[in-house]
């Protein structure tokens, strides 16, 4: 094939460590893609004749006729795994780290009075659902309420939307929240309290079981939101 193969071979050097790692990583990625595609084919997916525009992997089609790229939608989320905006676990780990840092600081600064403060915040861990809510709040439209487990339709129809950037900036910014976010937190707190009062009134007046259940859910989520806001204010 190559007529000058032998000449060029004299200039060849073995790849360096870094290059080897890159080659190895690429090979592993290819192997993973092949394995995933094989699994999907065995589940009944169809292999199409087209390739993905972004990564060049062959597209699969599931039974609902939806096209699916294995590399883009499954493998590349490895990079996003550390992005707290998109992953609740990452957000949780960041919050824990910050709490640990602040409790250490508090212990150094005011050993006496600070004990009571960090301990409730240390014992009450923000649950992943909150972080999940924060993450989904970032992903979806700003009208959705970040920390609520209810569907947004019930709330959006009845009340003005809460600002979505309430507790979220804490997870995004690495620096501690400054003055503007304090006012945002207070704002959020006020609105939540208003919502709580409204919901209590509605609950008194409601006749159907379904709406009562939903209002109780709303009350619970408002209370939880308030609790998290209080914790954030203490950070």
């Amino acid at each position, binding site marked *: 094939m190559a007529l000058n193969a032998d000449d060029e071979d004299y200039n060849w050097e073995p790849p360096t460590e870094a290059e080897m790692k890159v080659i190895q990583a690429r090979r592993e990625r290819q192997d993973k893609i092949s394995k995933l595609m094989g699994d999907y084919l065995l589940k009944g997916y*169809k292999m199409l004749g087209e390739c993905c525009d972004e990564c060049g992997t062959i597209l699969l089609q599931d039974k609902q006729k939806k096209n699916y790229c294995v590399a883009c939608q499954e493998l590349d989320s490895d990079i996003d795994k550390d992005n707290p905006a998109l992953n609740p676990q990452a957000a949780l780990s960041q919050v824990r780290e910050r709490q640990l840092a602040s409790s250490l600081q508090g212990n150094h600064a005011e050993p006496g009075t600070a004990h009571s403060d960090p301990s409730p915040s240390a014992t009450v861990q923000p649950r992943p659902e909150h972080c999940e809510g924060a993450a989904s709040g970032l992903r979806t439209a700003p009208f959705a309420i970040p920390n609520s487990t209810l569907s947004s339709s019930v709330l959006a129809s009845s009340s003005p939307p809460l600002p979505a950037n309430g507790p979220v900036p804490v997870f995004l910014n690495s620096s501690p929240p400054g003055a503007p976010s304090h006012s945002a937190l207070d704002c959020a707190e006020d609105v939540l309290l208003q919502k709580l009062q409204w919901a209590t009134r509605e609950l008194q007046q409601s006749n159907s079981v379904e709406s009562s259940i939903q209002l109780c859910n709303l009350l619970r989520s408002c209370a939880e939101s308030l609790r998290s806001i209080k914790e954030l204010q203490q950070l």
Partner: protein
Amino acid sequence: MNGSHPVDISILVQVAETLESIVSRCFGPHGGLVLFTKATGELLITRDGQKILSSLLLEQPIAKIIVHSAVAHCHVTGDGTKSFILLLAALLRGLRVMVMRETTRSTGRHGQHGLQLKLLSDHLLAFQTQVLDHIVRCHLRQCASSLFLSDRDCKVTRSNAKLLLEAYFYGKVGANHCQSLSTLACDYYLKCTGGDQCNEVVGFICDHFEELHTKVVGIPSSSSRILEGLVLHRDFTEYWPTEEELKILVITEPLQPPLVDASATLYLQSDQQLQSSCAWIHQRVQEILSRLSVSGVRLILSSVKQTDLVLYHAKLNRISVVECMDPEELSLFCSISGAAPVSPWDIFLDQPTHLAQAQFCKSILLGAHRYAHVGITSKSLCPQYCIVLCGPVSGLTIQCASAFHGAFKMLRQTLQPLESRYGPHETSENIELQNGIDCVVSSINVCPAEGEAYGGTDRVEQPRQCLARNLIPGGMHHSEPLHFHSCHVKEECCGDKLLEPHCTCNIGDATSIMKRTIELNAKSTGDNSLVINAQIDLIPSPTREEECLCTLIAPGSVFPVGGSFELLLHYHLLKYASHCLDPGTKAVCNLVANALLSIPRNIYTAGKSTRHFLHVYTKAMRDIQSEGRVRDGPKMLESVSCKYQLLISTLECMRSLICIDCFIVGTRRVSPPASP
């Protein structure tokens, strides 16, 4: 979606690797089963490569080509779909490395792969025709053992057949059913052929396997057995048990004459005319059946439904009737027994001829169905036994039946001699010793003109016995110029002229040829005369020994299982590549040699660790270097010709794939061709 999609080597590799990841889970003796959800929602649990690949939903044309080639290969040899995919994936991976290296080195531009791939496909063809055949003929043939007792006596020993079939079933159905199926297959083969090498019988079994076997569901597989005679997959409409010899009539039309023919019109003017017509019909039927009874016919096999009147009279005459038979089954019955379908008018007018002879005819209950069991007296060399295959579930039974069928296809392939498709086929009647021998120069090296002999002793092959008698001892002095017909002179980079192998040259004086390697001084167009060491293969004349030269792989050649064929071929290819001058052939040899290792690697890799494979590999290389064969392998055997066929099919599939530039997707559906 319309449009043309360019095909790159990376797409080929991706498709091949995806299929490889599916197939490697169930490959080899330790492979597992694959759970597959079909489009209809039903589950399929199998390890049959052909079934898995055919069930995948693939719209990618490359994948469809690969699957089609693999399945077509399996139809011929009965096995090897998974090995095909593994080998193809390894070859394409190696190819991608070669192509990437080429483009980055030579032009630095990517996307010039098409030209390299086309060049490579030419080299592949040259590799198949020259190198592979040569290596198989010279090196691998010596290491293969034979299924037969001895060269002259072409009887297959029971133990050898059992080892071959055991290896096959181990890979096909796993360890559970391997023993029972291989014993059954061995018994069936020996019963049908009597141990002699009967390719026709095995071919007959392969072609008519559907009719020769019966699947029974709901009974444990240990109840599978061989039955004498033939089981007709229909129950009796009328049954009179007979144990003595009987004659059988085969008929494809209704025995009762119709009231009117299809093309004619019957005018009836009164009821009485109708009555008399019907009475005539009754009488005819009665006569026909009594004539049959007189001739000794006790069974009528009909492919159409007979009327009640016929059945009534058959009952009166004690004749059994089987109706609505499958046409294929009926034709099989006719070919085994020598009977032919008879027309009713022949019976009426004359004594019926072409009746089949049988020893018994009875009803048999297999599972939930009752069938007719007939013991045929066969004159021709046809199998007189049939198989009953049982299984607890229908999926397993179907799998065992197809494995059984594949085993016989593999046997047929093993017992046939494999001829070289590309070897010297000119059958010159007489080798003319007077005017010079037309010989085929199979490999040529070029050396400097100082008379320095080429040092590689590997090029000098041991002359085969059949050629020795044509070589006349004498001094080697040849001063006449060589006449080269139909050869190409190729420029090498260093300016030497390299003659393309397999050109024919006429060597003036036959008496001057002493040994296979001769030194010829030939004048090139340059100033220096070159010394050419040529290896001469004489074109064989059609005597028995020379037929061996054309036959690449003798019938009944087997190798021990576990990758010994691949390891041997790998070793010899690497050796050939190290001595080869042509860079294209060298690259292809290396490519194929490395790809061949993927099969034993998959056999011996347990989990992620390749330690066992490396151990086996180093030991095998050492053995081949010292003794020329692989020792201490598993005792079971596999067919050489199937393995060789696998390699050839894979190389041809790869060649057809790399020549594709792009595919165009159209909107109209093309109906798929009927499966063979």
